[in-house]
């Protein structure tokens, strides 16, 4: 009983200010290998190119972080690239990155029959999920990213106008 009162008066909670553990993934690999996949398969206005969505993707001619209509097709800015990288990184499980059912970024776009997670996008357009099987080369790229694959930091991002 005394312990209970001490809890009530002083608080018996743990340390809740710990930062989110984030998977150790490579920014260059994301920028040059993963971003083009997200642009192609995820960034439509009706999907994750909708700014109201929890997970959103900035892409050329799609959702932009500020700017005007005349600049919608401009190359991604550093804030947008960083935001895309950050949004993807926090959806990876830092403990079991290769298990699709444990990682939202990898599991969501994979067909459930192949071990993926429920993805409303697979139903909305009645066209199935982004990746039908684990053999899809783009899916393999996502898995490699989740597993910490690295790219030359000087790589040139497709669509960067460089």
């Amino acid at each position, binding site marked *: 009983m005394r312990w209970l009162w001490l809890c009530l008066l002083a608080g018996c909670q743990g340390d809740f200010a710990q930062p989110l553990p984030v998977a150790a993934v490579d920014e260059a690999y994301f920028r040059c290998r993963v971003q083009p996949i997200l642009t192609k398969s995820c960034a439509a206005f009706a999907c994750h190119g909708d700014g109201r969505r929890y997970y959103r993707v900035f892409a050329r001619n799609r959702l932009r972080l500020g700017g005007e209509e005349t600049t919608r097709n401009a190359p991604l800015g550093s804030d947008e690239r960083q935001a895309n990288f950050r949004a993807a990184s*926090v959806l990876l499980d830092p403990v079991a990155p290769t298990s699709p059912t444990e990682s939202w970024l990898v599991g969501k776009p994979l067909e459930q029959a192949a071990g993926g997670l*429920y993805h409303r996008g697979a*139903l909305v357009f009645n066209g199935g999920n982004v990746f039908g099987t684990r053999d899809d080369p783009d899916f393999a790229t996502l898995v490699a990213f989740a597993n910490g694959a690295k790219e030359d930091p000087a790589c040139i991002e497709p669509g960067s106008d460089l």
Partner: protein
Amino acid sequence: MRLQLTLALMLAARSAGAEGQASVDVRSGVYQDSDRTFISTTTVAARGIVKDRLTIEARYLVDVVSSASVDVVTAATSRFSETRHEAAGAVGYRDGTNAVSGGYIYSIENDWESHTANLGWSRDLAKHNVTIGLGGTFVYNAVGRSGDRNFHRTLVVGGGAAFVSFTPTPRDVVSINYSTSYLTGYQASPYRFVYFTDGPSRASVPETDPNTRFRHALTLRWNRHVFTDSAIQSFVRGYVDDWGVTSATVGAEYLIGLHDFTLGLHVRGYFQEHAGFYRPVYTAPLRYMTADRELSRFVDGFAGVRLGWRRQRLGRLTELRAEAKVDAFGFWFFDFPRLQSRSGVVVELALGASF
């Protein structure tokens, strides 16, 4: 349960001895709130007594929920509907001094399945003026995600309770109850994501709660018989857990016996301090992040009336009874930006018979 029985004895003494050997009760209720959530609940329960000592109970419950609340809409779904089925069975034995009981509950809905086992023991002391009791519960939950065949989590709960109730005067029944539970497993919602600001942009993560939770509650109940045929039933409850949630609840009901009728007027108030990891807005990604308004700081208040009726010896029936109950409520959230308040009503109708 024992206090409810005691109060029933205080209010309608003549009905106590007329309880039949078997009874059936049906209760149906609807809930509607301003956050566009509607719930319909129907319960059917049957009870039989064998040789005045052994009690066997069975119950079936069905919940139908339809919601377009802020939680649902922000999860990119316009509205959802789901049905929950629950079946329960219990066996009790009492010899006039000791009572033991055991029960099992099975509950299933499209994204949740649970098994609950309960055990209880109580003993009357001091010429039945004091009752002490212990109870334990174990719950195994399988948590899923609607439409998702590969999302599987578990939540296991173990709990215990101890109580003492006594009659300091012939008009009073006082009870003190301590309960605790320990939860381990998945306690977040698989449908909720939490935003955090990230430089000029923002990102989101799936809601993540701590894997364990240790809860404690202490409840004091006081029932007092007043005037000739009425009673006041009151309680105060304090709660604390290791997530930093603390709360206090107070409630009272004034019950008046009027021939075959019982009129009850009740109020209840609740205050809760938010969980330690709850933030209205997260400015950085933290290990634990939640968008659950039930973990925010809020108060709620309920007020209502219920009217019961019971008549003994109606043809082959030992007793026929009915009850109507109406509650109005309001919730006020102090640090939940998406919803500042919600209000609503709960209406229940019940009908029962003993044979």
